[in-house]
């Protein structure tokens, strides 16, 4: 009995760590830059496929390849916000119109990124083996790459939290999330902070993609949307715009997933969406969100 519970908890946390990482980027992009980036999963997909290319083509260690894919995705995200979403913000008459229009632009981006990826990598699944060995913890087998992924996710989550609460750019980001207008008046360069958030969101997505390609087989250019959906569920669970919320929400979702799959694997996604929709109805601001 205790062994089953331990197994459920650990495997839940292993999945949950990746869910948390997927969601933190989206939360940052929506919470501060007010872009509901439906193309978020496409950045995850890019992260996964770039890692695959670097590892199988150039023999670069997947974990170290973040030094290449991370800055690359950050720059793409930064530039996209600086060009597209900033000018959209200047054109939109109201916050509601901005949200609607940026959803549509993100939508276009989704088509563009996905199809460029198909042209570059083809639609076939890409897999590689890295740290694919098994360790035994308390009588249960766990893959090393999963454990590494959880460690990375926790490390990044804590680092990000400290960055947001302790550093000056982090404080600027939080100020901009609360009230962009006032933050601007306080001397924060909004046109730099918002693209920064968007770029950091893309960076986190790339890191999540890296870990996904390491832990799961068969990364394809079509993997984006399902990851976007998971991110949306976690973000709603934790509260749109709350980084700790996304982190804990991800872990909770992972636990729910492993509890349900212990009972019936086919019900996991049904349970995710059911929780997601019930939560949206009862408490749309999420567990950690503020009214």
């Amino acid at each position: 009995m205790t062994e089953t519970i331990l197994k459920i908890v650990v495997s839940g946390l292993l999945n949950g760590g990746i869910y948390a990482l997927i969601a933190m980027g989206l939360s940052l992009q929506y919470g501060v830059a007010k872009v509901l980036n439906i193309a978020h999963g496409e950045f995850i997909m890019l992260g996964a496929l770039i890692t695959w290319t670097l590892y199988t083509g150039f023999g670069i260690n997947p974990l170290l390849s973040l030094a290449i894919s991370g800055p690359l995705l950050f720059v793409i995200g930064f530039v996209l916000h600086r060009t597209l979403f900033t000018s959209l913000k200047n054109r939109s008459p109201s916050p509601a119109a901005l949200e609607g229009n940026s959803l549509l632009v993100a939508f276009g981006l989704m088509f563009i990124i996905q199809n460029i990826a198909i042209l570059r990598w083809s639609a076939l699944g890409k897999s590689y083996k890295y740290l694919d060995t098994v360790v035994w913890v308390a009588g249960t087998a766990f893959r090393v790459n999963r454990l590494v992924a959880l460690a990375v996710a926790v490390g990044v989550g804590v680092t990000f939290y400290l960055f947001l609460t302790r550093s000056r750019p982090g404080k600027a980001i939080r100020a901009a999330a609360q009230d962009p207008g006032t933050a601007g008046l306080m001397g924060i360069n909004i046109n730099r902070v918002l693209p920064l958030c968007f770029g950091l969101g893309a960076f986190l997505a790339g890191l999540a993609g890296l870990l996904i390609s390491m832990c799961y087989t068969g990364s394809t250019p079509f993997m984006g949307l399902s990851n976007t959906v998971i991110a949306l569920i976690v973000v709603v669970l934790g509260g749109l715009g709350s980084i700790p919320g996304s982190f804990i929400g991800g872990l909770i979702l992972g636990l729910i997933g492993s509890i349900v799959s212990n009972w019936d694997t086919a019900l996991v996604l049904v349970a995710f969406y059911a929780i997601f929709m019930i939560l949206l109805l009862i408490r749309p601001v999420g567990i950690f969100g503020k009214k």
Partner: protein
Amino acid sequence: MDITRFIPTNRKLLLVGLLILIIFLTTFPLYSKEYYIRLMAIIFMYIVLAVSWAMFSGPTGYMSLAPAAFFGVGVYTAALLYQLKGPLLPLPAVIVVGSLASFMLAFLTGLVTLRLKGIYFAIFTFGLVVFLKELINYLEITVSKVGGRHISYVSNTTVFYILLGICVATLLTAYFIRRSRLGLAMQSIGGNEEAAAHMGVNTTRVKILTFAISAVFMGAAGATTAPRLVYVDPGLAFNVTYSFIPILMAVFGGMGTLYGPVIGAAVFAYTEIRLRQQYPYYYMLTWGIILIIIIFFLPAGLAGLIPKLRDRLGGPISKLWKGGKAEEHAHT
């Protein structure tokens, strides 16, 4: 006395044009190849989806990502009631059941979600599509032990005429809603919901009603199109693409007018059939770029281009016309 004298010339031209279009479309299957009949049917299907999406989301500004849910309910109704191994109901009845099921789903969704503001509504409707897909998939596999269902055969011509009918019904409904108090109420909600509520508009009722009405046509289109798919499983029926494409078409054509989504749907469907087979990825890539360009430079869509062009070209043409006359005068 000639009655037509009372109708202004512009309107007369429009009526004549509509009449020709109606004759052309109703006789179309008589002299066309099977391929073109199918193509037209697909165009009608997309017009229904785009116009009914724009019917609700255009004026209110509430981004619904649920068309695939309502379309899928229609498709799956046909998959259950119109199977190859023995249809339970005749096709018209299946279509009615499909649209009613969509109506009910939209009504319930509206009842619980339309109090949600802006972006939460979009997220919820998006979740609805994937939720239905997974739920029905689970039920099919565990309860009825099938992965999918084969649907009974219906000829292209029949599908063509039914979709034409649904298309006309959608357009007429959209037209009358635009001109009614309901349409005005929706526009006031899109402008400023709180102000609309203060002016006495029952915003929740207006939103639920139009949301449910728009779902009827999507469900009907789904039930009619299902036989053309031959084989249906939950993944095919509740494909999120059916949510994305109508939005793309409506934005491309222009949501502000009735004919905008029609133009968008026709252009998209035609190019899809012509180009997608050969260049599937470049095709969607190009549409992604077009979508972004439209949002930035043509917020009113292609339909917004028409008055602009008329203004641009109208000046020089009339000047040319007058200039020519003046010259003529000078010569005499």
